[in-house]
């Protein structure tokens, strides 16, 4: 049975959720369950947070835990609901010139730096970029900048993967986008996963309804309903079932 | 109305340092027909542009029917229409060009009739030309279309800047007829510039001459330009290409021009003896033309490279058996030249 029409809810999100098709997959179900039509604007993480800060959207779906925390502290968000994660992987050319296959993240990054093997960085302050910066720090390497082997692309994930592929470079990517990328190449892409599975590589997504006290115009009720719906068991199952090339892209972890 | 059509006071216009127009006074009456002659660059077109309210003067006022008027007075501007020296047709058909002014005035009811009429006035068959595009015309045809688009407006004042340049002789008389018809039917006043004195004479009642930005009395075309040389006897002299010399009383500068009134020149068949006049020059008659509605004939005499117009009565022309091609002597005094 269809719920009655309750209007639209505007969300700002990062490009990864949009590009993988997850939202396209969830939105009709959300409408069916709640009568709310979900509309979203896919932008960079920083821009998504800024849109929330400016009261232009009612809810956010983002993945940059540190920035999110700061955002909450400033009182921009009403609450932060953890929804799901996927993980980051280090991709590289099939012939793996720096020989990082199977190494730990720290060792892999060190090898890349020592060999001056090319590495493509998002360089756009996105969740993925911030995670990458953390990983360099953990590996005890000062963040490379003007190194000729370090390419800061300032672009979305998929474009950065493409650049890495063209340049025979390594890169850090979220698994969801990589699977999508693999799909584009009918399962035979020039870049392959070389490092995966480390604990440090987790990529957490959260929903943040915008604080109605700062922004009286936002549809806080609908935003809350969306957060609850995303965290509900039914939706968590839906997320787990979302697959590309028969591979799971996101791992629900609401309430963890 | 007691106010004249135009009353001009202290009119000035200049193009940077190149040229100054200076018309301290000018009155044109209703229904008058004024011809303006003068050499190239003397300011005729500049004056017409001011009188047709196309440009605004730098100083001075033009009273049109008693009202100070200028380019911003649409009322006045619609009473006066001007044919530019190098006419410009809109990128439309001939019909649309001629009808354009009517369209502006919202008088399109009988436009088709009026356009056809105006075209035939200037000697263009409406059936042949009305549908042509603006560029499908010869030079003279284009000029005539431009004229038709002014005549069709039945204006109070028709200002024409060389209407017959590039028009063939036969058609130029056709145009004269068209202009006369306009005068008769709509009591249109005329201000016409032309280098064709003969034609202008037949169209206008009154002629004035423009020289270096100033209006001077009409003196049928004898301007003797500098440079001059100084001679011992307090005189200026101009040496002609065949060695003859024109002498004049001293002027202000060796570059000045002087005017020689055709009535102050006499024609003789022999070089006169015991004459007080200092200038006795040999020349040949090139042309003789009727000064319409007077008893005079204008005789154009070529002296070396200079063309002098001499006014003689018809009877003396007959008495002296003047005929084009004949060798004659022209005689005038050194003091007859007036410096401008």
């Amino acid at each position, binding site marked *: 049975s269809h719920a009655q029409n309750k209007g639209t809810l505007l969300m700002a999100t990062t490009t990864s959720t949009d590009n993988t098709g997850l939202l396209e997959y969830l939105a009709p179900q959300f409408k069916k369950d709640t009568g709310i039509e979900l509309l979203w604007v896919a932008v960079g993480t920083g821009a998504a947070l800024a849109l929330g800060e400016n*009261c232009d959207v009612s809810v956010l779906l983002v993945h940059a835990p540190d920035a999110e925390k700061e955002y909450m502290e400033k009182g921009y968000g009403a609450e932060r609901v953890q929804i799901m994660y996927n993980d980051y992987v280090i991709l590289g050319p099939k012939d793996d010139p720096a020989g990082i296959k199977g190494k730990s993240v720290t060792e892999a990054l060190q090898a890349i730096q020592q060999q001056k093997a090319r590495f493509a960085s998002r360089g756009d302050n996105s969740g993925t970029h911030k995670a990458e910066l953390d990983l360099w720090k953990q590996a005890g390497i000062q963040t490379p900048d003007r190194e000729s082997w370090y390419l800061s692309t300032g672009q979305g994930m998929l474009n950065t993967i493409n650049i890495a592929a063209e340049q025979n470079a390594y890169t850090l990517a979220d698994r969801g986008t990589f699977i999508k990328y693999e799909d584009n190449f009918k399962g035979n892409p020039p870049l392959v996963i070389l490092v995966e599975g480390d604990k440090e590589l987790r990529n957490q997504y959260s929903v943040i309804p915008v604080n109605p006290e700062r922004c009286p115009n936002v549809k806080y009720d609908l935003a809350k309903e969306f957060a609850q719906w995303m965290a509900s068991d039914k939706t968590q199952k839906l997320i787990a079932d979302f697959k590309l090339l028969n591979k799971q892209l996101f791992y629900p972890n609401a309430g963890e | 109305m007691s106010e004249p059509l135009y009353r001009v006071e202290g009119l000035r216009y200049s193009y940077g340092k190149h040229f100054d127009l200076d018309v301290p006074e000018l009155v044109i009456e209703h229904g008058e027909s004024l011809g303006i002659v003068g050499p190239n660059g003397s300011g005729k077109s500049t004056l017409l542009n001011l009188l047709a309210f196309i440009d605004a003067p730098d100083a001075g006022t033009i009273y049109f029917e008693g009202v100070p008027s200028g380019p911003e007075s649409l009322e006045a501007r619609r009473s006066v229409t001007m044919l530019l020296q190098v006419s410009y047709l809109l990128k439309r058909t001939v019909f649309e060009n001629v009808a354009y002014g009517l369209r502006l005035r919202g008088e399109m009811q009988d436009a088709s009739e009026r356009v056809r009429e105006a075209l035939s006035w200037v000697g263009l068959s409406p059936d042949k030309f009305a549908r042509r595009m603006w560029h499908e015309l010869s030079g003279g045809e284009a000029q005539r279309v431009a004229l038709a688009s002014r005549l069709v407006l039945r204006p109070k004042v028709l200002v024409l800047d060389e209407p017959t340049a590039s028009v063939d002789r036969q058609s130029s008389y056709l145009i004269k007829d068209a202009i006369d018809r306009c005068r008769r039917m709509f009591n249109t006043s005329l201000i016409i510039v032309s280098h064709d004195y003969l034609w202008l004479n037949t169209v206008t009642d009154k002629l004035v001459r423009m020289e270096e930005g100033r209006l001077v009395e009409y003196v049928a075309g004898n301007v003797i330009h500098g440079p001059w040389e100084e001679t011992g006897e307090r005189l200026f002299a101009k040496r002609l290409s065949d060695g003859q010399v024109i002498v004049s009383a001293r002027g202000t500068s060796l570059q000045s021009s002087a005017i020689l009134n055709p009535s102050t020149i006499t024609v003789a068949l022999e070089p006169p003896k015991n004459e007080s006049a200092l200038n006795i020059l040999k020349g040949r008659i090139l042309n003789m033309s009727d000064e319409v509605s007077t008893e005079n004939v204008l005789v154009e005499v070529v002296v070396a490279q200079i063309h002098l117009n001499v006014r003689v009565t018809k009877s003396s022309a007959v008495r002296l058996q003047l005929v084009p091609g004949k060798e004659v002597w022209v005689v005038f005094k050194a003091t007859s030249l007036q410096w401008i």
Partner: protein
Amino acid sequence: MDYIWQGLQQAAVLIFTLDPETYSAVITTLKVTFTSITLSVIIGVPLGFLLGYFNFPGKKQLRMVVDTLLAIPTVVVGLLVYAFISRRGPLGWTNLLYTVPGIAIAQVFLILPIVISLTATAIEGLDRRLRPTLRSLGAGRVQLALTSLHEARFAVLIAVITAYGRAISEVGIAMMIGGNIKWYTRTMTTAITLETGKGQFSMGIALGVILLLIVFLLNSALVLLRRRTT
């Protein structure tokens, strides 16, 4: 390489199946660009006329500013307009953000300089005799402007076509102000960008081909119209 070829095929499929998503983006694109070009012509052609026709002190400087604005990036226009119509901006109450009229209005700022500058150039290129001719025939101010524009009609038309091309091909403003919201504010160009971002290059090409086809049809219609009216 292959995706170009696939893109062409896909374009055909999208057209013949009347794909609803594509159809929606086409309609949005047309709504946006018709609005923005109409506004820009209404505002820009008269301004361009004034700039090209009159001489006034500071004209050169003004012209230089307009010419400089030809180089304004779409994102910058997006940012500026966003600053005003964002909820917390002074015009937040207009609710223009993420709407079709919002994109159109922002695009006006992008293409107005093109319309103004090229119209001014068209007017400046007119024969020097036109002004005295029209005055001598008794044209008032407005009639003078209209006829001058009519005389320069081919160049003014190209000004409009160039501006329209800029509007229909821009993506920064449509992204930023429209938000690329599916079924609502997704235009052809934001859809192309999205598909490209997804790596669906052939789909990007397909949509690009459809966009150009639309423009080609519009241009043809214009030519027919022109032939009928002159």
